[in-house]
């Protein structure tokens, strides 16, 4: 299925929605979106192809295929999620399927940055909290989770909470709506010129003068 929720925009202080758990360490971006789906010049069609080979292997029991998880917005994973290829197609595919926040024990750096650039927070949970959250989702797929970037916790309407962490920088960028940073980078033109002028390799290695 494809997402009917709007893509992230503006300030992101919390994400509320049902969860979907994908268990396992070191799930790489080739598994999130196999390379054959990268033959495209737009990201538009990627949503249905997310986890394509894993889903085919487990058909029809992969969490992304199970009826009770359709429309889920919070993905809960384990360690080193998103390792391998830098392809932004991976978070794009997750986003277009409907994911709006990822909670995991740890993330590969490029994947984490790619998610941030799309306004999808990746929050960390301790091992036991991640497992408990996954178990809670599997026990009750209709459970409405709230991922709060200010309180740094996941919570249920019944009041169960799990602590999460998110570095101060990404947290501020998301909550102020400045996660899409091109504008910020264009604001420092004078400083950029000064950098160009002090780098010898951009000045034909001529002595500074």
């Amino acid at each position, binding site marked *: 299925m494809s997402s009917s929720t709007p893509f992230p925009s503006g300030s992101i202080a919390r994400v509320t929605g049902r969860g979907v758990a994908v268990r*396992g*360490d*070191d799930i*790489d971006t*080739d*598994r999130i979106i*196999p*390379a*054959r789906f*990268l*033959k*495209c*010049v*737009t*990201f538009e069609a990627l949503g249905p192809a997310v986890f394509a*080979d*894993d889903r*085919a292997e487990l058909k029809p029991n992969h969490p992304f295929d199970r009826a009770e998880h359709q429309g889920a917005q919070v993905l809960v994973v384990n360690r*080193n999620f998103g*390792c*391998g*290829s*830098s*392809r*932004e197609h991976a*978070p794009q595919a997750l986003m277009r399927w409907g994911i709006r926040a990822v909670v995991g024990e*740890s993330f*590969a*750096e*490029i994947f984490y*940055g*790619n998610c941030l*650039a799309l306004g999808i927070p990746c929050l960390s949970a301790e091992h036991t909290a991640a497992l408990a959250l996954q178990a809670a989702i599997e026990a009750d797929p209709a459970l409405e989770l709230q991922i709060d970037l200010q309180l740094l916790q996941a919570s249920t309407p019944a009041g169960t909470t799990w602590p999460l962490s998110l*570095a101060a*920088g*990404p947290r*501020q*960028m998301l909550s*102020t709506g*400045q996660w*899409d*940073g*091109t504008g*910020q*980078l*264009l604001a*420092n033109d004078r*400083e*950029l010129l000064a*950098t*160009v002028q*002090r*780098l*010898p*390799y*951009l000045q*034909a*290695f*001529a*002595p500074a003068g």
Partner: protein
Amino acid sequence: MSSGTLYDKVWDLHRVAELPGGSTQLFIGLHLIHEVTSPQAFAALRDLGLGVRHPERTVATVDHIVPTTSQARPFADPLAEEMLATLEANCAEHGITLHGLGSGRQGIVHVIAPELGLTQPGMTVACGDSHTSTHGAFGAIAFGIGTSQVRDVLASQSLAMGKLKVRRIWVDGQLQRGVYAKDLILHVIRTLGVKGGVGYAYEFAGPAIEALSMEERMTLCNMAIEGGARCGYVNPDQTTFAYLEGRPMAPAAEAWPSAVAWWSALATGAEAVFDDEVRFDATVVAPTVTWGITPGQGIGVDETVPTLEATEPNERPLAAEAYRYMDLQPGTAIAGTPVDVCFIGSCTNGRLSDLQAAAAVARGRQVAPGIKAFVVPGSEQVAAAAEAEGLDQIFTAAGFEWREPGCSMCLAMNPDRLEGRQISASSSNRNFKGRQGSATGRTLLMSPAMVAAAAIAGRVTDVRTLLKA
């Protein structure tokens, strides 16, 4: 916190500004693009009404989707054709140099930038490709980025980044005969794990590293990302300078002395402080082969597939999944494992010295019956140099196919792929499930010489036994 390392110095030199939110705006000295991760970035620029800030600092080539049999246009695959046509149109519109098919300079982006002299010490290098870490071999700070960041570099020649910690990987001793940089990096990743480098830049140093050629250093840094480290680097030295001198985009003769002086001053000094250090002994590294589904699941060719009991408790679920997927039994020797396909190439091991090492094994021997074996040079320049010394003849006489340059079966975005449950001996960088184009295909990573040995024997074989013969 690290200080005085090459990473610290290059970071400081390229720092444009501190951004609200705590990240640093970092100037990007060299931006490389290819057909897979750039089209959406150009489309985003168009949507934002932005141009390319420094088109002369971006260089393009086509590598991932090109066929390696016939490269005649239009490609048989209309999607591949559309991707290349889009790259051509974007480069033409924005005044970006594209090293296209037949230019004599086309090839895998991480092969051509070094051979053209574009990659130089002290630069920041970014590309929408995780193996950008390759360029760290020159003492550059080089890392992979996503497509939104490609857009940012095109628009501003800079990126919002967080500073990494620095771990020195110190390697004493020397690699033994039949053991290559590929074996060393597989050994490092096996030891530190695929997550061990997350948050770090890896500085490779020590006598074993200093003895490596530039091409070997590229192999090493290429796979830093497989250990979780977004960038890896080697301090520039005489080996670096000798490689660069006279290359088309290297500093001209009149600038050369000041370039070398600047590069030399960037190297990590004796007073440098690291966040962490790990020591290795090169003399104990054996030809290394992966048996599982991550590059960290590697063993010496003379070892057995590890048992669950011998595996760290939190690595056991992945090991169990790997046994199942690979259909390899714990406790059995990896040597002797039959293979179906042998692939020599990729940004890890598609350079001239890689082909020379493989050809030395293939010379005068024959690929075993039923084995598909093929060699894909990393670039048009590598292909020409290999053909000039007759390597193509050695390979074809031995029963290998000699192909056109590209990424090929490393990730199988072109027609080169595994079928069904085929198992490959591959000189590439990733043994992930489904990586080589079949959802059930299996990959054993190893050095190019080991791939050649596997092709001759039809099974995983210790290349040292063939080198002695």
